[in-house]
Every structure is written in structure tokens, then in C-alpha cells.
């Protein structure tokens, strides 16, 4: 059952990711990205982290992607016609970077993948257990990140405002 759900989700994720990078229409690509993020939420839920899964849907698919879609529509981007001509620099670097990434990923998978994962412990992935971890073990990183987000937000408002009076 789990394996079946995993393969369906994997297929959806990879297919939608391919649409994101190959489709010429920016709106279609954005919708495919939203779809991709929702399928990844499915993986979280499959792994027992349902709280993170639901947050993934709310925050990424429900808020951020809608904003991105909003911007794309406002700019009214036309469909891209004809391929971009890639420079020599790009032609050499892109495959090289991809190869390095593939090697790193493959090695990590080969070294660490266990034959079977132990089942998650009782209460794993619930809001309560996640909250306890965040506010005890990862307290300082958590606070630093929230500070960082506030700084980014204030910066964005400042940049968007033309006059500061």
C-alpha cells in the first residue's frame, strides 16, 4: 500500500517537475510547480510527518505559489517562442554541474540508504512533538530564523515604498 502510494507520488513529482522546466508557458510552469509541491507534501505524510506535509500545502502551494502566479499574470508574460541560444560558457558548465550533483547524490544514496526504514515512533510528526523540538533543542536556530525573516520583510517594505515620509 505504502509502496504503491510512493510510486504514484514519485511519478507525479517527477512528471510535474519536468513540466516546470520544459513548458514554454510560464503560467503552466507555475501551476506544475504548485502540483509538484503538493506531491512532495504527500511524501511527508507518507513518512509520518503529517504536520510538515500540511504546512507544505498551506505555505507553499496555498500562499507562495498563488503570489507567484499573481505576479506572472500581472506581468502578462508572453509565451516564449524559440529556444534561447545558450552561450559556450553555459554549454560547458551546465553538464559539468549536473554531473557533480549526480555523483554527490548517488554517493550519498549508496552510502546511507538502509534496506528498510524503522517505523516512526509514537507521536512522531505531530504538531506537539514538532513544537517541543523547535522550542527546546532547536530554540536558538528557530529564533535566529524568525529574526532573519522579519529583517527580510522590513527590507522588502522599505524597497517597495518610494517615499519614506
Amino acid at each position, binding site marked *: 500500500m505504502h509502496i504503491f502510494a510512493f510510486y504514484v507520488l514519485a511519478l507525479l513529482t517527477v512528471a510535474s517537475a519536468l513540466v516546470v522546466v520544459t513548458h514554454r508557458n510560464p503560467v503552466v510552469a507555475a*501551476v506544475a510547480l504548485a502540483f509538484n509541491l503538493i506531491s512532495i507534501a504527500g511524501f511527508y505524510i507518507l513518512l509520518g510527518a503529517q504536520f510538515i506535509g500540511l504546512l507544505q500545502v*498551506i505555505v507553499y502551494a496555498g500562499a507562495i505559489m*498563488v503570489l507567484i502566479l*499573481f505576479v506572472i499574470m500581472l506581468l502578462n508574460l508572453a509565451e516564449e517562442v524559440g529556444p534561447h541560444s545558450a552561450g559556450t560558457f553555459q554549454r560547458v558548465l551546465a553538464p559539468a554541474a549536473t554531473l557533480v550533483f549526480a555523483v554527490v547524490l548517488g554517493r550519498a544514496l549508496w552510502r546511507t540508504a538502509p534496506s528498510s526504514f524503522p517505523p516512526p515512533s509514537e507521536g512522531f510528526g505531530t*504538531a506537539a512533538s514538532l513544537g517541543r523540538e523547535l522550542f527546546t533543542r532547536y530554540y536558538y536556530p528557530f529564533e535566529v530564523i524568525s529574526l532573519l525573516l522579519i529583517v527580510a520583510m522590513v527590507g522588502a517594505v522599505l524597497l517597495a515604498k518610494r517615499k519614506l515620509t
Partner: protein
Amino acid sequence: MDVTDVLISFAKIFVVFNALMGAVAFMTWVERRVSGIIQYRWGPNRVGPWGLLQPIADGIKFIQKKDIIPDDAYKPFYLAAPALAVVPALFAFVVIPFGPTVEILGRKVSLVILDMDGGVLWGFAATALGVYALVLAGWASRSKFSLMGGLRSSAQMISYELPLALSIVSVVLLAGTLRPTEIVAQQAGPIWNWYVFRGIPLLGFLLFTISGYAETNRVPFDLPEAEGELVAGYHTEYSGMRFAAFFMAEYVNMITSSALGVTLFLGGWQLGFPVPFEGWPLWILQILAFIGKLAFFQFLFVWVRWTLPRFRYDQLMNLGWKGLFPLSLVNLATTAVLVTLNFNVAR
């Protein structure tokens, strides 16, 4: 999990789905009758007794209509958008407990389709996805009115999701759980145990209701389909059954957001007063209590629609960002303090 459990789940889904669809059909009639009464005219009263069969006549009419697809429309999204509007709204209802745990032939059956730990978030996630339908319908129609409607709906939904989410968070703070069935269980007993009266009484509930109106695109916040300026907004180019799907989605959304409000603030299926009997009579009374509260919310939606004028777009944004958002932050912070002081919390 044996076969009986699966069958029970299917039975619950079947009952809830059909009840929702029936309620939607009934609501289209209620809306027009009540608007008739409010505007001192009759409303639909020709088909069947009191015009009650009007929704069926409407359905037959919608199916007969030609399905017009504009030449310029981006077909995949244009065709998918009406379905995308209905499905998330139905999804959200999955986590709403519509009755207590009842006993059928010696087997305990909890009257909720999916009793999950993050249920409140599930409901919120499903409603948050509903905006895609409006945005995509607006864009895929390739019409300036539709596009304007889609843009407005996305901006509006994002703006009002914040006060909505924050008002829900204040209830979650009080309840200490995200599981809807537990939140309802905590509101047992007398009526002042309901979360409307906890923390700062009424404020969270008011914020939730107002943002709920904006989230469901109902008057006074129905800017995405403001007919005075945008013809019909995001569904201008739709006809026949596809238009009817958007119409249905609006009503399902109303019912789901009301159900979420009832569950979080008005005690769900709790009666709020003691009764001298138990077992099936009590359970049926509790289910009826849930339906009654839902019906009150629905009537409020209709009442407000035919009483208030539509906001201007800048007024809508000002109210959202400068009125409701700070107020909901104050509500959340105060609730947090009250929870720490253990004042008016009572678990």
C-alpha cells in the same frame, strides 16, 4: 482496519457528499427566496410547493445549455477550473466532526470522515487551494474581465487568509490541539464553554466570520465577480454546467467555512445545555444541533448579502491589512497571555 471499517468510511463519505450536494441545491433556493422576502417580492415560487423544486429545474436548464468555449481560451485550464473549484471545498469537509461517537450494532462509529491530528490545518489547506480555480479560470478565459476577476480573487484571498488563520490559531492556543474532534470535545457542557466565549469573547469569532466572507467571495467582498465593473468576473466566459460548477463551489465553500466556524467556535455538535436522556435520542439531537448551527450561518450569509452594499477594492484592502490583520494579532497576543495566566481558558 478490516472490511467493515472501510465500508463504514465509504458510507460516511457517501452520506456527507450527498448531504452537502443536497444542501447546496437547497441553498440556491433559500438564497433567492430570502432575497425576495428582504426586497419585498416573491422570489421563485412556481416550481413545486413554495418553489422548492426550482433547483432541479435549474439543473435541467444548465445541462441543456450549450457549452461555449472561447476560441482563445487555454483549454486544459479552462476545462479543469470548474472542477478545481468544487473539489477543494469538498475536501475540507472531510475533517469536520458532524456528530458524536455513536454505536451502530455494537460498533463504535465516530461521525467524522477523517479524524486526524492536524485536522484544522487540513481544513485550512483545502480552502487555501480553492483560489487556484478562480485564478486559472480568470487567466485561461483570455478575457480582460475574467483576468481582472482572477487577479482580484488571488490578492483578496491572500490578504484575508492572514486574519482567518490567526483567528483559528487563537482557538488552537486555547484548545492546545489541532484535532477537530478534541476541540469539539473540550466545548462540552454549558454554552459558555464554547470557544466564542473563551479568551477574548466574540472577537476571534467575528474576525473569523468576516474573513470567511472574503474567502468565499461573498458580498460585501465579492469583488472578483463585481458585475457592475467586471460583467461577471472570473466566470464571465463560462456557460451551462461549467458556470453551475462555480456556483456550486461558492455554496460548498460557504458551507465548509461555516462548518469550520461551528466546529472551532460554536461547539460543533455540542448542545450547550443538559438533556435528561442519552443514547440515540441524544445523538440525533446533537447531529441536529450541528445542522442547526450550520443553517444559522448559512442564513447569515444570505442575510448579509442582501443587506450590505459591495465594498470598493481599496476599502477591501484597507479593511484587511489595516483593520482585521492588526486586530487579529492583538487577539492572538492577548489570548496567549490569557492562556499563560490560565484566565477564562478552562479545559
